[in-house]
């Protein structure tokens, strides 16, 4: 379906990534946000708080991130599209409710504007060091989807995509920004509402007596009902059967947890979004995401000027990791170079998918700034000489 025009600020804007993310959420139909202030993410909800009463919706500032991350889920079961926004320390507090959203299949979006860690770390400076936390931070086995924008325009476009994926798969979607992308101001074009595709909720059409909240058909994603509609359903974070009733047996656990994983894993190639450039005939492929992809571009350009055959693969979807793409490339290229603002996170996934068929070179950075393109170039040169 098309976006509700009330939430779409059609036009050409000069705004930062945080504000663009907020406009993306409104365009996607989000009418509820719960938040707790934390640098460098607060501007998203500040804008939402100003905008949403003129659109028809609610913002509530909660007492902490534990509250914010579950309040939004209450709103989802009340019928809203909802999200929260945070940064590292707050993201750590939200982990429990990412697990709850995964287990109860509550469609929602968690925006993490990454800053340097661990702990309080670097409140105002960038990092990309929450990438593994986004994937594995809550306990137990589950799958999430994570997207990485590299510009304010993508903060708008991909926030809509994040909400759409959340609804399609009924999973929490992690929107993994970073401080630079969040605070970078650029041109953002917001199209007319009738050009924006919005995925509706998988609301059940079944009669009350036929509805089982966690029954699934071929695509492994159950249909949802909202409180107050007469279905009188039960939702629990306990292991549950198709009725939504607690059923704590190894058999029910196996069936449920495998489905929670497989509904996303089976769609990995369909969910995978990446930007690729000159992969054909490349010796070295630079794999990057977020702000680092823009720094890496300079290194790639210089390397090409020097005659090296360097391809570019920018991950837009970080999770589920597009391992088939890396596997295919690993058979063709000599090496991958993976710059990221952490001491080695997504590079492990590249290495795992390459499985020894191509070498993998990390270009680590502890955060607090971005790479100097020279550092990346140096590793590209080294990688291109490998045998």
């Amino acid at each position: 379906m098309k976006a509700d025009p009330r939430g779409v600020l059609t036009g050409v804007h000069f705004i930062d990534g945080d504000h663009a993310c907020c406009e993306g959420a409104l365009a996607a139909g989000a009418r509820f946000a719960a938040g707790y202030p934390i640098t460098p993410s607060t501007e998203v909800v500040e804008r939402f708080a100003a905008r949403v009463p003129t659109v028809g919706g609610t913002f509530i500032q909660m007492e902490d991130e534990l509250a914010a991350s579950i309040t939004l889920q209450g709103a989802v079961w009340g019928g809203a599209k909802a999200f929260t926004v945070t940064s590292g320390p707050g993201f750590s507090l939200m982990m429990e409710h990412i697990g709850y959203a995964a287990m109860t299949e509550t469609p929602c979006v968690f925006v993490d504007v990454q800053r340097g860690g661990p702990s309080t770390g670097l409140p105002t400076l960038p990092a990309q060091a929450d990438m593994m936390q986004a994937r594995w931070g809550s306990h137990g086995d589950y799958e999430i989807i994570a997207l990485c924008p590299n510009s304010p325009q993508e903060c708008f476009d991909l926030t809509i995509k994040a909400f759409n994926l959340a609804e399609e798969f009924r999973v929490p979607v992690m929107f993994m920004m970073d401080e630079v992308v969040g605070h970078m101001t650029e041109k953002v074009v917001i199209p007319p509402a009738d050009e924006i595709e919005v995925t509706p909720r998988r609301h059940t059409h079944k009669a009350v007596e036929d509805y089982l909240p966690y029954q699934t058909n071929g695509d492994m994603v159950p249909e949802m009902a909202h409180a107050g509609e007469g279905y009188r359903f039960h939702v629990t974070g306990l292991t549950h059967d198709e009725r939504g009733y607690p059923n704590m047996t190894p058999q029910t656990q196996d069936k449920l947890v495998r489905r929670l994983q497989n509904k996303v894993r089976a769609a990995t190639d369909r969910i995978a979004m990446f930007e690729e450039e000159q992969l054909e005939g490349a010796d070295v492929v630079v794999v990057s995401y977020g702000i680092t992809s823009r720094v890496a571009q300079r290194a790639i350009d210089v390397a090409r000027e020097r005659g090296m055959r360097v391809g570019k693969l920018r991950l837009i979807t970080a999770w589920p990791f597009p391992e088939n793409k890396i596997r295919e490339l690993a058979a063709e290229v000599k090496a991958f170079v993976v710059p990221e603002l952490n001491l080695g996170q997504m590079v492990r996934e590249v290495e795992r998918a390459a499985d020894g068929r191509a070498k993998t070179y990390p270009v680590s950075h502890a955060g607090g700034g971005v790479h100097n393109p020279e550092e990346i170039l140096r590793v590209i040169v080294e990688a291109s000489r490998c045998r």
Partner: protein
Amino acid sequence: MPVKDVGLVDQGVVNPVEPFLRSDRMPHIWCPGCGIGTTVNCFARALIESKIDLQSLALVSGIGCTGRVAGYVKLDSFHTTHGRAIPFATGLKLANPKLNVVVYSGDGDLSAIGGNHLIHAARRNIDLKVICVNNLIYAMTGGQTAPTTPGHATTSTNPYGTFEPAFNLPHLVEAAGAVYVARWTTFHVRQLARSIGEAFQKKGFSFIEVISPCPTLYQRRNKMGDGLDTMKYYKEQSKTRHGAPTSEVGLTLKGEIIVGKFVDRDRPDYQTMMRAQYVEALGERFVEAPEMVCS
């Protein structure tokens, strides 16, 4: 006199609270002598008497023995994470203000791990009805000290007796802003049902504490007898004092239990205040939140 089979089952006569329960989930997990089932019965009777529309009623629980209530009531019911029933319920209520939202959870869940949410929801005066079953202990996990455990009580984590001062929950929530505060024990089934009914008439944050036995852990370890002995204790030691200053209703190990309706006052609830503020500040630019339901 022997009980005569009058054929009620054959005549299709059912327990009046049956329509409120998920009978297909029985038997429940609660121990013999536990008071939680009694509170659920009172809750169901209050719903019958108040003629609350069950379709517009949602119930939210946290984790623990009382947290399991959500799984046994035939309502839109949510068994959330430990301590977070109130913020979940807040989101539910704000997204769909037509819902009557009840939070039904235990003392540890609501006042320890969820204590911050409890006071802030009372401060905001979110329109929620909170039923707090207080068994003075962490029961699900085996009888550890809770913030409500009275001094000198023996628990598995204070085997030589507790010494931390306990929370006086009515005092806490009154100070934080609740508009309705009452306390009963599971002996006071009619009074409890009436209080629940009254809370449904209030717009704002209502809090009903129900002192409830845990014969398996609290009573046994403190040599207070079984469930029946506890009923006798509640009967003999409870004093009804409506309007009692909540600062004076703290509990002791084997002393008096002050029960009654302590607070019944009015102040605008969160959504009323929110709307008024937006109307004042935004005038015609304010857009009423439509039904948020996204088809």
